[in-house]
């Protein structure tokens, strides 16, 4: 038996169309005769014709017609921007599938903490208003970091704060201010300040492929090492980079740096044991290229994926890599090389070791400290290599970092850590 069946309902068709129709036609092949064929053909034709007026009763299409698309909850985001993610216009038949797609598209944006789409009655039965209700994400994001370090015979305290605002001046750009201070507590001095003001535009030339990052950085640090070695830096520089996204998660960049203030003095004994001083690092300006990717699922609390950031200039090279694996819903393990690569939103504030293996365990939401959205504690044993620091001795550092990281309602992301190490002087 061959069965043709269709159901269609309409409330907004022209007067001559059926307001609510149910059309069914059945053709039994066992009883095919000429007359029956004709009737069946006519029924089939009629059914096809009707189906052009009535929407098939599949879940994707209903008899409802979109009268308008409205936005709700958007204090800072234009409704035209939000509506652009829903491919339905007034007069279109309502598609629940498209509504679900639009919800997913909008949910993929960092602009919204939540997105909900629902219908409300239009001016007549069968006509609906699609309402896109959003809760906008906080455009200002903070991060606070405090850590106590006992490394290379120095005991010092690091405090760092970051504030960033997205969609600055109505653009999609982000402004970030990062201030860091290091204060010595005991042992060889380890102090300084670091600050960077940065603007990042995710769409350059109205293209989703290109982005721009520019910033100004000031650094004044004095770091003393064993055997009388030290590094004293006083720099102020400006930079500009243009990047292009390639493949799924990767990008390349090219940029230029100009150091307006550049005083850098490094002193170490070297293999001979005699002090040598380098006060002209010859890197006051220059070009750099970079390559990286980011497939991590979360910039602060990754559970899987990897990040790479690398850059190469005339007188330096930097490669940082991290990969994270999920052990179970509550714990992850990570491997890091060269330090924590920068993330999609935050500056790389972490104090690192050259190579480390980390274990992270989830801390659930709570009402402590004004509200914790999520958190984790972590331990990171690792090793760092400082090279020939004096008398030809290779300096290795074995360290352990322990800490907690919270995403709090009041203070943003809060990082508290302690790191201690022991050194080994090889021959």
């Amino acid at each position, binding site marked *: 038996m061959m069965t043709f069946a269709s159901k269609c309902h309409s409330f907004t068709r022209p007067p001559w169309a059926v307001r609510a129709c149910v059309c069914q036609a059945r053709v039994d092949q066992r009883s095919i005769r000429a007359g029956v064929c004709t009737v069946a053909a006519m029924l089939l034709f009629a059914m096809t014709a009707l189906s052009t007026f009535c929407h098939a009763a599949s879940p994707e299409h209903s008899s409802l017609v979109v009268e308008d698309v409205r936005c709700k909850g958007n204090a800072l985001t234009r409704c035209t921007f939000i509506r652009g993610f829903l491919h339905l216009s007034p007069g279109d038949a309502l598609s629940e599938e498209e509504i679900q*797609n639009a919800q997913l598209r909008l949910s993929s*944006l960092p602009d919204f903490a939540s*997105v909900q789409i629902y219908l409300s009655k239009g001016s007549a039965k069968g006509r*609906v208003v699609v309402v896109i209700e959003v809760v906008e994400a906080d455009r200002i994001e903070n991060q606070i970091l405090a850590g106590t370090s006992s490394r290379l015979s120095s005991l010092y305290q690091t405090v760092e704060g970051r504030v960033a605002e997205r969609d600055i001046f109505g653009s999609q750009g*982000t402004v970030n201010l990062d201030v860091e201070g290091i204060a010595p507590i005991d042992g060889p001095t380890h102090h300084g300040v670091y600050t960077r003001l940065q603007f990042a535009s995710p769409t350059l030339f109205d293209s*989703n492929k290109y982005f721009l990052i520019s910033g100004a950085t000031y650094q004044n640090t004095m770091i003393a090492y064993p055997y009388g070695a030290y590094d004293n830096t006083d720099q102020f520089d400006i930079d500009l980079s243009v990047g292009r996204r390639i493949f799924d998660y990767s990008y390349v960049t090219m940029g230029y740096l100009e150091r307006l203030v550049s005083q850098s003095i490094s002193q170490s004994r070297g293999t001979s044991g005699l002090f040598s001083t380098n006060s002209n690092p010859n890197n006051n300006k220059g070009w750099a290229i970079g390559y*990286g990717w980011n497939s991590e699922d979360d910039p602060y609390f990754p559970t899987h994926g990897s990040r790479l950031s690398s850059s190469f200039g005339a007188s330096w090279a930097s490669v940082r890599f991290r990969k994270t694996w999920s052990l179970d819903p509550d714990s992850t393990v990570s491997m890091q090389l060269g330090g924590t690569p920068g993330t999609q939103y935050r*500056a790389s504030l972490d104090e690192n070791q050259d190579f480390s293996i980390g274990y992270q365990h989830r801390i659930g939401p709570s009402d402590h400290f004004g509200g914790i959205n999520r958190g984790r504690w972590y331990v990171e044993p690792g090793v760092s290599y400082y090279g020939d620091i004096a008398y030809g001795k290779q300096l290795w550092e074995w360290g352990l970092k322990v800490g907690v990281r919270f995403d709090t309602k009041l203070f943003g992301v809060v990082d508290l850590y302690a790191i201690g190490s022991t050194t080994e002087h090889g021959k």
Partner: protein
Amino acid sequence: MRRGALLFLLALAAKPAAAAELTPVVRGHTIGVHCAGIAWPATLTKDLMSGLTNTLVIHVALWSDSRRLDQKTAVITIKYDLWEETFALTITVDKAATLTRSAETQPEIEAFLANLELPELFAATEIPKDKPATLRVEMLLNPIERERLEAIKKWVLENNTSIPADTSGFSDKRVGTSGSNAVFNKIFEQYAGGAEAAAWRASLSSKPFRTPPVAQQ
């Protein structure tokens, strides 16, 4: 009149309905499930009144001796009529319609979801004699097909305007735009894990139970 009265093989503990509870339901020679105290998402009421179709997929598995004996999938659809202000409710089990109700009121729908019952899913004879069995349920609200997630994933990749990770050309300190929201990440986490994806899902297990030789009234 129902042929067999509802029989809960395990006594319902006198606990508040805070914790979700799954209990087997024996009716005649069949076994079904009863779910109570489910922590539905906070947006459920709004979702139900959205005028859009809400789909609840429930996978029910019968286990005994660390072996899955049988599995059924029930699909419950609930749709609110904005003009009639009533709900249409349909239940299918393994694609066969078992219940269709229209003109349901909101309290009726809420009561239905508060004490969700899917009777007559399995034959009692499926459970080996003298062996305890358990029921496991996994619920997904408005699941998203993998094909659609593939398409959305492609769209996100093509339209991604987030600043890539630290470009670190001259500095360790870089910033970009933040990632997507938690619900979206959760959906794609499930997708990446190979599971059916949904913004809300819940899993329940019953306590071990034995079927009586003769179903009682």
